C-alpha cells in the first residue's frame, strides 16, 4: 500500500495523480459517499380498448370544465 501511495504523487502526461485514497475504508475519490435511497417503479396503466374508451369519455367530460387540462393559477404556484 505504501508503494501505491508513493505512486499517487507522480506526474503523468494526463495530469498529476493526487488526493487519491486507495485503501479500503478511506473516503472515496471517484465519487462522493453514497446515500442510497429508493426510486420506486411507477404504475402506468397502459392502453387497452376498454381503457381507451374510458379515457376518451373522461377526456370529453373533463373538457367542459377544464379544457386541455388547463387550470387557473393557484396560490401555491406563487413564490
Amino acid at each position, binding site marked *: 500500500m505504501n508503494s501505491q501511495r508513493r505512486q499517487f504523487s*507522480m*506526474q503523468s502526461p*494526463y495530469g498529476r495523480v493526487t488526493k487519491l485514497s486507495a485503501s479500503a475504508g478511506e473516503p472515496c475519490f471517484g*465519487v*462522493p459517499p453514497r446515500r442510497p435511497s429508493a426510486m420506486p417503479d411507477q404504475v*402506468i396503466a397502459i392502453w387497452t380498448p376498454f381503457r381507451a374508451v374510458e379515457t376518451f369519455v373522461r*377526456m370529453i367530460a373533463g373538457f367542459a370544465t377544464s379544457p386541455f*387540462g*388547463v387550470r387557473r393559477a393557484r396560490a401555491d404556484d406563487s413564490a
Partner: protein
Amino acid sequence: MTPRSVTFERWLYFGLVVSTTTTASARFWSILRVDGFSWLKLALFALFAVLVFWIAASFWISALGAYLRWRKPSGAGLPVPEEPENGWSSPSRTAIVVPIHNEDVGALYARLEAICDSLEDARATSLFDLFILSDSTTPDHWILEELAWQRLRERVSLPLYYRHRMDNSGRKSGNIRDFCENWGAAYDYMVVLDADSLMTGQTLARLVALMDANPRAALIQVPPALVGRHSLFARMQQFASSVYGPACWEGLAFLQGPDSNYWGHNAIIRVAPFMQHCGLPALPGRAPLGGEILSHDFVEAALLRRAGWSVWMAPQLGGSFEEPPPTLLQYLKRDRRWCEGNLQHMRLIFARGFRMPNRVHLAFGVMSYLAAPLWLALLIVAGFETFRERRFAPVAYNGIYPVLASPISHQLEFAVLVLIATLLLFGPKFLGLLELWRDPERLRAHGGRLSTLSSVLLESLYSTLLAPIVMLSHASFVLSILTGHSTVWGAQQRSERRVPLLENIRTFLPHTMAAIAGLAAADHFIPACIWWIVPLAAGPLLSIPLALLASSAGAGRLARRWQLFLIPAETGNVPIVRALGERMREHQQIRWPADPVKTVLRDPVARALHLGLLRDSQEAPLARQPGWMSFLADEAALSQHPLREGQ
C-alpha cells in the same frame, strides 16, 4: 411569479388548426366528390385531412411564436432572473450529470471543460458538482475516460466525479436512475446533459435561481440550439435551428405553460419529485413495443404532471446548445432509435391519469414518425385513384347529365390547395426570416439580409429534396418496428468523418430504386401526371450523391466561405462556443495512449488511478473479482505479463 392561464390561447390555437384543416379538406372534397363516391376516394380524403391537420399544427405553433417574438416581451414561460450584484448564490445543491456511452473522450472533456470555465466566469461554481456517469462498454473508452477525468479535475475548481457502471440496465434512464438511487438524496436539483450538450454558466445559474423561486416547478427545459458542426448537412440544420427554431420554441413555451415537455437533456430537474414519481416500469410484452421505455423523457414529464408538479420550457434563457448529427446517415440512424421509442408511446397515450397536454405530446411524438407511412400511403392511393379516373375528361360538368357543355375546371381548387400546402410547409421558414430581419444584431450575426435570404432559399430547396428521402426511411422504420424488429443500443457516431461511399450506396440504393420504380410506374400508368411526380422523386433519385455532398465538411466550409448558413456561433458571437473551439484544439494536442489497456498495465500512475476508481465502484463486477484487482496491484505479477513488455 404566477403562471398565467393560457386557456384562451389554446382554444385559439386549436380553432386555427381545425379551421385550416377544414378549409383545405373542403377544397379537396369538392374535387373528389365529382364523378361519385368510392372507398379509394374516402381513404384519400381521410389521409389528406389527417396530414393537413399535422402540418397545420406545426405551422400555427411557429406563427404564434413569431407573433409573440414580434410583440416583445411575449410573457411566455418563466421570467429570466437577473444576476445578483454579489454573484450567484443558492441554498440548494445541484449536480450536473452527464450520462455517457462510448463517446469520443477528447471532445467530451473539451465540452465539460468549456462548461466549467463558463461557470467560473459566471462565478457560479460553488452551486454545482459535476458527475460523469459512464456506461461505456469498451475497456479503451473506460480507461481513457478515467485518464481524462484525472486531467480535468486538476484544472477546474468545482467537484468533479466519475462513476463507471458495468451493468448498463435501463440504458440512459437507468444510468440517471442509478445516480439518483446512490447520490440523489444529496442534491436538490440535477441538470441533465448529453455528451454533446453545452450550457453556459449563466444559464445554469439562472436555472437554479428559477427552481429556487418556483417551488412547484419540477423541471425546466431549455431548448438547445444546434452548433459545432462543419459538414454541409449539419450547417444547414444549425442554420434552420437558429433562424426558425426560436419562433417555434416561443410558441411551444407559450401554449404549454406549466404543461411543457422534457427533451431528455439540457434541463434542470428537482430530484425529490423525480425520484418519487419517475421510476420507469418496463412495459408489458417484448421489444420493440414492450420492455424498457426507450424515449423516457416524454413519459417522465407526463409522470411529473400526473403527480401535480409543473414542467416548464424556458427558451428565453438561451445559452443552451447541442450538436446535430454530422451526416444524413447518422441523422437517420438516430431517427431509427427515436422512432422505436416514440412508437412505444402509442401504448401510453391513453394511460390512466395523464393530463391532456401530455397525451398530446405523446401523440405528436408518435405522429412525427407515423406521418411518413401516411404520406407514402397518400401518394400511392392518389396514384391509384388517378389511374382509375384516367379515362375521364380533366373537367367536370354542372348537373347530373352533361347535356349542356358547361365545364367546371378544378384548376382553381388545385391552385388553392397547393398554395395552402406551400404556406403551411414553408411559412414557418419565412416567418423566422422576417422575424430575424427585425433584429439588427441577430441579423448581423447570421451574415446580413442577402446571406440569410439565400440561405433560407437553398435550405428550403434542400429540405424539399430531403423530405421524400426521410419519408421513405421513416416508413421503413415504422414497418420494421411494427413487424417486431428492435434496435441495438450502439454508441452515437458524433465525429465528422466522411461516410464511406459503399455505406452510402448500401443505405440509399433502396431509395434510388424506389424513385426509379415510382417514375416508371407513373410514366406507364398515369403519364399525364408525371410532372407532379418528378419533384417528389428527385430527392430519392439523387439520394446517394446528395448524401455524399451533404456529409462533406469541405462543402460545408465552401458554403461558409460564401457566407451561407451562418449562425452566431460561427460569426464569433457566442463565447462558450469559441472557448469550446480552443479546448477542442488543446485536446487534439494531447497524446492519449493508443492502447489504454496496455497503459494501465505499464504505467503505474494510470494503474493507480484505475485501481482507485475500481475500489470506489464497489458494486462493479470487476471490483468484486479480487483476482483482477490484486493482479493490478501486484508489481511482481504484472512484470510477468506479456503486454507489460510491449508485446
